[in-house]
């Protein structure tokens, strides 16, 4: 691989990582639910870019089909509550108690907990990760290779997933139709 191509891939890699982190932080701390979902979708797109960087771009398209349904349903839910949930009869009586001390407590404790765990993980794994030998060869995962593997070694998994979709049809019938 030429030096320019390698450099391009490294730049895309770090940009995608940075973009992923930024959109993750924004979606976590944004108060507006709609923007949360937008940044969450953006983080998913950055993962797609990363999958190309790791020479597995075909994965993004295969799993993207199901993930899109999930995002659609979440958007519909948010849209419905925003549109219909603001009428007077659904307004909460009195405001939610939001003390400053409670809010700080709510952020500080999880931050402390995650900080301690992160520090312990860093201390425990730094020696091991420094000594890992990385392989420089490049191989690209093709759709034919993956489907071949599914049809030969992992056919049971494929059968399970297809059976799930069929069984879920019955469930959609149960919750979709009200009983008399």
């Amino acid at each position: 691989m030429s030096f320019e191509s390698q450099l391009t891939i490294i730049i895309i890699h770090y940009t995608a990582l940075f973009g992923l982190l930024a959109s993750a932080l924004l979606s976590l701390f944004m108060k507006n639910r709609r923007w949360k979902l937008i940044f969450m979708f953006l983080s998913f797109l950055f993962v797609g870019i990363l999958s190309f960087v790791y020479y597995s771009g075909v994965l993004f398209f295969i799993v993207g089909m199901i993930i899109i349904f999930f995002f659609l349903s979440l958007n519909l839910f948010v849209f419905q509550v925003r549109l219909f949930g603001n009428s007077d009869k659904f307004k909460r009586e009195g405001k939610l108690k939001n003390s400053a001390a409670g809010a700080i407590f709510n952020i500080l404790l999880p931050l402390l907990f995650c900080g301690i765990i992160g520090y312990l993980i860093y201390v425990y794994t730094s020696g091991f990760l420094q000594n890992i030998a990385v392989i420089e060869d490049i191989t690209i995962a093709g759709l034919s290779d993956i489907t071949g593997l599914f049809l030969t070694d992992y056919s049971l998994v494929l059968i399970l997933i297809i059976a799930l979709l069929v069984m879920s049809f019955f469930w959609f019938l149960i919750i979709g139709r009200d009983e008399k």
Partner: protein
Amino acid sequence: MNFQLIIYFNLLLFLLGIFGIFYSRNIITMFVSYQFIIISAIINFLSFSNLLYMHSLWAEVFIISGVISIYFLMFCIVYYIYSKLNLLDKKVFYENYRLFRIITSDWWGEDNR
């Protein structure tokens, strides 16, 4: 590519997801936190497969089957909330939902909520 950086980034994303689970007050933030943990696992699989194991397809197969099944499960849950719950219950999930709650009636006494 710096392997250590990738792993620490993934662990950071994982911890961000754990932080989000405890911090979240609504179901959207909770799903966002879940997404972080899933993303960190996906990048782990891809980077390990690519940089350590000669691009073994096992990781790709795991990502496909795992992500499809988890996201379909989450889709069914959200679809159930959207189609079956009344608007008041939806607002509870939208505005004031915590994954981990400690209430006295779950320890003793009666549950008359």
